[in-house]
């Protein structure tokens, strides 16, 4: 009896597990699923968890990656309204929003969905870029540059088209990945750049020389000004000195005769100061003493 209960318990467990496997399925947080009944999509599941279903062959579960898929378009040429051929490549993030629509539409194939998306995106950016001159893509003027506006316009159009076409997908965001010019145009750009460089080189050279000349001549002018001012100042100082001297002269007015005598005698002494050779007349005052009466030793 006891053995039978054990077998029963084990059997029931095994059966329960088997039934669970047949009737229950899990949808992970990164997934969405659609339950098909005899091949027809009947129940979309967008929230993660464990769910019940009828066993195969009645119901089947198709699971898809719910995360944002990364799509990159081809590098394609579009014409701007001002006549430039612009090559453009965009990336977009898209998700499966309605698995029950997505599954029958693309047979569950991500690749097929992206092929269709490519068409939508190409139409969108051809249409949008056709309305924006080149200066909206590249410009040193902040107001003219409408890079993000263009991206937003493309995104709006794609979102509208994707919804309208009933793919069961949603476009989350879009950005430009690459911009380019046709190969033949790059050569023309290079030629223009070359001449711009040459122009700039000569401009820099001339500017440098001019600026240096201005600095040098300015320095000369300034130094001349400083010296002239200093000369004027020195002259003024001298004049002041002479003015002061003039006051001192008044003293000499008391006895001009003595003044003149003193000046002369000082001057005489000054210029006969050193290493002079004197030839003197015997009649010069103290020497006249030598001549008349008492002849002493001659020097």
């Amino acid at each position: 009896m006891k053995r039978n209960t054990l077998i029963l318990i084990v059997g029931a467990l095994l059966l329960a597990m088997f039934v669970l496997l047949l009737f229950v399925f899990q949808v992970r947080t990164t997934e969405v699923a659609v339950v098909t009944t005899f091949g027809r999509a009947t129940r979309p599941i967008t929230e993660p968890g464990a769910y019940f279903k009828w066993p195969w062959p009645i119901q089947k579960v198709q699971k898809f990656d719910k995360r944002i898929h990364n799509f990159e378009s081809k590098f394609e040429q579009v014409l701007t309204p001002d006549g430039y051929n612009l090559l453009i490549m965009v990336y977009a993030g898209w998700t499966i929003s309605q698995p029950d629509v997505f599954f029958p539409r693309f047979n569950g194939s991500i690749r097929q969905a992206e092929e269709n998306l490519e068409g939508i995106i190409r139409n969108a950016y051809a249409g949008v870029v056709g309305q924006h001159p080149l200066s909206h893509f590249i410009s040193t003027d902040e107001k003219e540059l409408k890079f993000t506006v263009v991206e937003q316009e493309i995104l709006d159009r794609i979102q509208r088209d994707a919804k309208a076409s009933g793919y069961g997908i949603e476009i989350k965001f879009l950005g430009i990945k690459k911009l380019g010019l046709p190969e033949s145009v790059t050569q023309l750009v290079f030629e223009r750049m070359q001449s711009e460089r040459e122009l700039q080189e000569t401009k820099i050279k001339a500017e440098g020389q001019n600026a240096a000349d201005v600095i040098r001549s300015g320095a000369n002018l300034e130094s001349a000004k400083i010296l002239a001012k200093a000369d004027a100042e020195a002259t003024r100082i001298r004049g002041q000195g002479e003015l002061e001297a003039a006051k001192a002269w008044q003293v000499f007015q008391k006895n001009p005769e003595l003044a003149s005598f003193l000046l002369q005698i000082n001057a005489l002494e000054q210029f006969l100061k050193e290493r002079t050779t004197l030839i003197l007349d015997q009649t010069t005052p103290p020497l006249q003493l030598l001549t008349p009466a008492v002849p002493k030793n001659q020097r």
Partner: protein
Amino acid sequence: MSNDNPDRLAATALPPGQSPEDAGSQALADALKSSFAIIRWVMYVLLAVFLFSGFFTVKPQEKAVVLRFGKLVGQGDKALLGPGPHWAFPAPIDEVKRIPIAEAQSVNSTIGWYATSPAEEASGNEAPPMPSLNPIRDGYVITGDENIIHVRGTVLYRINEPGLHYVFDFVNSSNLVQNAFDNALLFAAAGFKVDDILTRDFAGFRDRVRARLEQLANQYHLGITIDQINLRAIPPRQLAKAFASVLEADVRRSKVLNEARSYENTTLSHAAAEAAARKNAGETERNALVTSLRAEADNFTALLAQYEANPQLFMQQRQIEVLQRVVTNSQYRFLMPRGHGGQREVRLQLNPELQAPTPTELPVEDKH
């Protein structure tokens, strides 16, 4: 324990009716008994293995989350399991997902670079540039002033806690970071002048790239922190020489300007020194004039009294004093007697080379 039952069943089954024909069933019972024992041990082991398989370890630089029946256990930060050992229900029930949070991630952008390979670059054996750029092969960016340049870079970033968006929201998150980085390069270049990117304002360009990348990462809810952006920008190789010569001209310009500035400095400081010297000279002259004159005036006043007492004597006295001093200081003196009213002739031979006139010559001159 209920698992002991099979043993006891087998043991108690034998004793009651022990007949010869029971020998076969006896053997069968023994076999059953031992196989039940084996199965029991196998079950123990399997159970242990099953439960033990729920253990997992989270490494220091990562975090982990548990999905139970596909649903995240816990909300936001609470869902995160830190480093160390953890346990979750085994396979069909729970699933462990690891998030490399502290680990530095990096992506490169080469949409703006010409076709090359790291090996070619390292060896310096790059293919020479063609006269034009093939849009399929060669990448470049267009600057705001319609110039073509090459830009490439690396962005280093980390996943922010809890990092659930980064792990669960994107099929390929690093690919999206790369696309956003590409877009940021294009966007920044589209608004900058070529000279600003290459030389004048490279830091400004890098800041613009960073700001754009951060803005996109927020917009996409990537949940990352950008640590560093390394960029390299070069002019197209086709025009390397033209760009280099502009740079050279720039360098030469600053050299010429510096020379002019140093000329300016020396000229002005010379002028200032000269000006001071001239003023000082004036000042000195003034002082000399004033002080010497004052001294003389003082002297004059002092002597005036003496003079007025007896002018004749005073003047004679002075004359003789001076003569005395002059004669004492002089090198040679000659005394010439006055002739008898007649004129005398004196001849001097002046020669600066001759320090002293030869004494033999002079007496000859003194002829009467």
